[in-house]
């Protein structure tokens, strides 16, 4: 029996190989080494929730009718009977209440989408804080960044499809922001809606974008993203035997096939659990889109909160200074453009191009495959925490009515507070984080020089009491001394010896200032010299 199976397998392998030379690929990939760390699974969560999205999405497309034609509801959900609604909304109710497993799949799809966007952001944060975006991975950072933007596009287009009153108001907000764009804004609104808001063609257009264009782009980018991961080989955390020139870990087959493959089923299982037990987006409670009603405490999906928060935070006028300007008879709504377009553009632009900023500051041109411990890059870690603080303040302001209600605070006070906090708290968070990092580095320094306290007090012959310190073990020691020490960059002076300004000086000066900001205050790793000296002082 065994030999027959083997024979069949060999036969198939031979058949395929003779037509594809797949043998070479299998030889190359099967035992490829992957390093192990829990934080490497964050990107996997994103990938797997996307697969769950595809699977559950196929189910939904079989029942959803992307049409804005108005019909009278006659289905089984009692409170909606007789209500006039679009076919999109009525088919959503139909699949929720008349198709066995339909509501389950809707909820699985929605939870998977929320998890997809969340895991992408957390994965990005992991890559950022460990410096995994450094050479040669800058391009892959940019691909990952684009995937993050596409996940927001996928989320928003999907959220709008049921044509319920909440998502309709979300679209109306988009319409308002579009109209604020100078010169072309009104026409962009007409372009999107096929005429005046909301038109009669938007849902079919969003549907095509949601099931074809956006996922197509995401699939292509994922393929590229993973191809580059394979090409670069995975980064690894610092530790004994780990260098920029090797990769230490376990083979793809069988260990990671089982672990990562198994993890897909875990992610799917957890999402199925959420879909089965936790209601999400109960559109039957909101009702079909109608431009007239809206209820208090309305919230967009979480990943849109930061823009909504910015819109809430921005004052229409401040101390009598209006943010809607009329220039030559044309209207420029800065109270919409700043929060709705300029802020996201600056935030996303900074995120997208951060790897190059840091490369200018460090001047390092080598390949980096060993990750940084966040404490060993205090300025980067501080910037990351600062940006997260900025984002969280916006997101909280995006649910300020809920927060105010929950904590019995004044809504207006919260908004006024957030207008100050958005400028002050990110800087404070940056500063505190940087200090915490250098503090942790000093602690590492101390541990390397003096070892761990053992709690054993010994009295010397001369009556002196000392506590015995135990030196760190080889691995713990190595992690604390093996990080790279980067000094601020120096550049050639402004003028050459004939007093002529050097070409490229201005950019060099910018890089030098950046470098000083990053690396001026730094804790250098303990050298063997210092360790020797510390030992001598003890004896």
């Amino acid at each position: 029996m065994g030999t027959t199976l083997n024979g069949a397998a060999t036969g198939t392998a031979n058949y395929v190989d003779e037509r594809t030379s797949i043998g070479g690929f299998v030889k190359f990939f099967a035992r490829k080494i992957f390093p192990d760390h829990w934080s490497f699974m964050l990107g996997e969560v994103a990938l797997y929730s996307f697969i769950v999205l595809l699977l559950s999405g196929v189910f939904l497309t079989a029942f959803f009718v992307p049409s804005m034609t108005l019909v009278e509801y006659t289905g089984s959900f009692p409170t909606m009977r007789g209500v006039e609604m679009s076919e999109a909304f009525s088919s959503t109710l139909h699949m929720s209440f008349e198709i066995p497993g339909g509501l389950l799949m809707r909820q699985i799809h929605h939870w998977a989408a929320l998890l997809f966007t969340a895991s992408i952001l957390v994965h990005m944060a992991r890559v950022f804080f460990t410096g995994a975006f450094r050479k040669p991975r800058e391009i892959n950072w940019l691909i990952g960044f684009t995937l993050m933007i596409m996940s927001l596009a996928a989320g928003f287009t999907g959220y709008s499809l049921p044509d319920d009153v909440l998502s309709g108001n979300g679209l109306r907000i988009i319409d308002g922001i579009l109209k604020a764009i100078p010169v072309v804004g009104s026409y962009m609104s007409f372009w999107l809606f096929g005429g005046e808001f909301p038109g009669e063609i938007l849902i079919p257009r969003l549907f095509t974008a949601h099931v074809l264009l956006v996922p197509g782009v995401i699939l292509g980018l994922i393929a590229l993203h993973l191809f580059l991961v394979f090409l670069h080989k995975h980064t690894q955390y610092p530790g004994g035997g780990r260098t920029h020139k090797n990769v230490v870990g376990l083979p793809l087959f069988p260990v990671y096939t089982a672990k990562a493959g198994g993890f897909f089923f875990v992610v799917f299982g957890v999402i199925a659990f959420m879909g089965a037990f936790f209601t999400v987006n109960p559109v039957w409670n909101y009702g079909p889109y109608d431009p007239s009603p809206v209820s208090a405490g309305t919230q967009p999906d979480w990943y849109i909160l930061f823009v909504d928060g910015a819109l809430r935070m921005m004052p229409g006028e401040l101390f009598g200074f209006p943010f809607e300007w009329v220039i030559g008879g044309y209207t420029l709504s800065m109270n919409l453009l700043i929060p709705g377009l300029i802020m996201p553009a600056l935030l996303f632009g900074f995120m997208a191009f951060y790897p190059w900023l840091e490369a200018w500051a460090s001047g390092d041109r080598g390949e980096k495959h060993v990750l940084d411990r966040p404490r060993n890059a205090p300025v980067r870690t501080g910037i990351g925490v600062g940006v997260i603080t900025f984002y969280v303040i916006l997101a909280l302001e995006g649910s300020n009515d809920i927060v105010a209600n929950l904590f019995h605070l004044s809504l207006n006070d919260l908004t006024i507070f957030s207008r100050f906090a958005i400028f002050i708290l990110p800087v404070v968070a940056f500063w505190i984080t940087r200090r915490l990092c250098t503090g942790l580095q000093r602690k590492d320094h101390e541990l390397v020089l003096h070892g761990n306290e053992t709690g054993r007090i010994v009295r010397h012959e001369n009556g002196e009491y000392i506590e015995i310190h135990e030196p760190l073990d080889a691995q713990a020691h190595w992690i604390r001394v093996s990080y790279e020490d980067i000094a601020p960059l120096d550049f050639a002076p402004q003028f050459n010896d004939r007093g002529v300004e050097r070409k490229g000086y201005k950019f060099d000066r910018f890089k030098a200032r950046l470098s000083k900001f990053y690396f001026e205050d730094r804790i250098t790793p303990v050298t063997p010299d210092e360790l020797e000296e510390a030992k001598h002082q003890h004896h």
Partner: protein
Amino acid sequence: MSNPDQTPHNDAPESFKDPGVPYHRPRRADVDPKAAKRAERQVAALFGLSVLGTIIALWAYFGLDISDDIASIQQVNTMIGVGIMLAMLGIGFGAIHWAKTLMRDHEMVEERHELRSSEEAREGAIQNLKDGVVDSGIGAAANGVPRRGLLKGSLITALAIAPLALLVPQIGNMGGDWNISKFRHTMWKQGTRLARDPDGTPIKASDVTIGSVFHVIPEGLNELETHKIEEKSKAVVLLIRLDPRDLNIQPGREDWSFDGIVAYSKICTHVGCPVALYEQQTHHLLCPCHQSTFDVANGCKVVFGPAERPLPQLPIALDSDGYIVAQRDFEEPVGPSYWTRLKTPAVASTGEEASS
């Protein structure tokens, strides 16, 4: 990792030595055959749980009774969900448990190679491209192929404008009639009765008691065959009656209200959400989307939040039957600002437009 600038002043080495990959620590199952056997049984049990999950999902689909009520279908949903959950988690945890307890876990080292191509490959690549350029005739004349400068320019021009043939019809068609002057007009005309949203019954002034609010649509909106929602998106109005002593009538609008009854556009001047929440005590209207707050007693001026402009007021009067009617359309576009909001539209407009 080494730091060549540092000169040692004692016997210490220049840098610390990498202790190498940590020693492999054996797991229970590596040393104890009983533990290994136990782990094997656990993995098999987890796979078995997955099979059970699939059976539960199929049983829920085929076996559970779906009557016409919602509770029974919810039950089917939950049980299919439980089945899928077990089917997936069983496989997942089983595979991971297998990898973590039983598969060999000795760390292995693989060398990386620099991503940069070898000098030889780079030179070869450059030479190949150069040869191609020469062969095509784009570059300088060589190997008997003359330079054909005309081709490069004309090809680039052709490629640059060819997308227009595709994109212009695509984008051009998507915007419908592109008539953005529609932003200026709503369904309100002289004599249009104010009607209740959503049933469309007209409102008498005597129905409106002090402190009450009516959500209003123009009479006839519900009978529209086309563009009903677009019209509703612009035309919705809030009708509020204040004690006339509280109402601070704006100059030039003395005849726009009637005995403390005022009508304002419900569409927020910020981004167009319906301004639906009225606070009777303060006469404030709050937009639940971004909390722009408008003071009804003072011409719906903005008192808080991101909006910058007051809500447009609809001039109202009474008709001979005592119903509240519009005097005319709004005098300014309702809803959010846009670039040409204050410009007279180029497209031909109604007579009312010229007066505004």
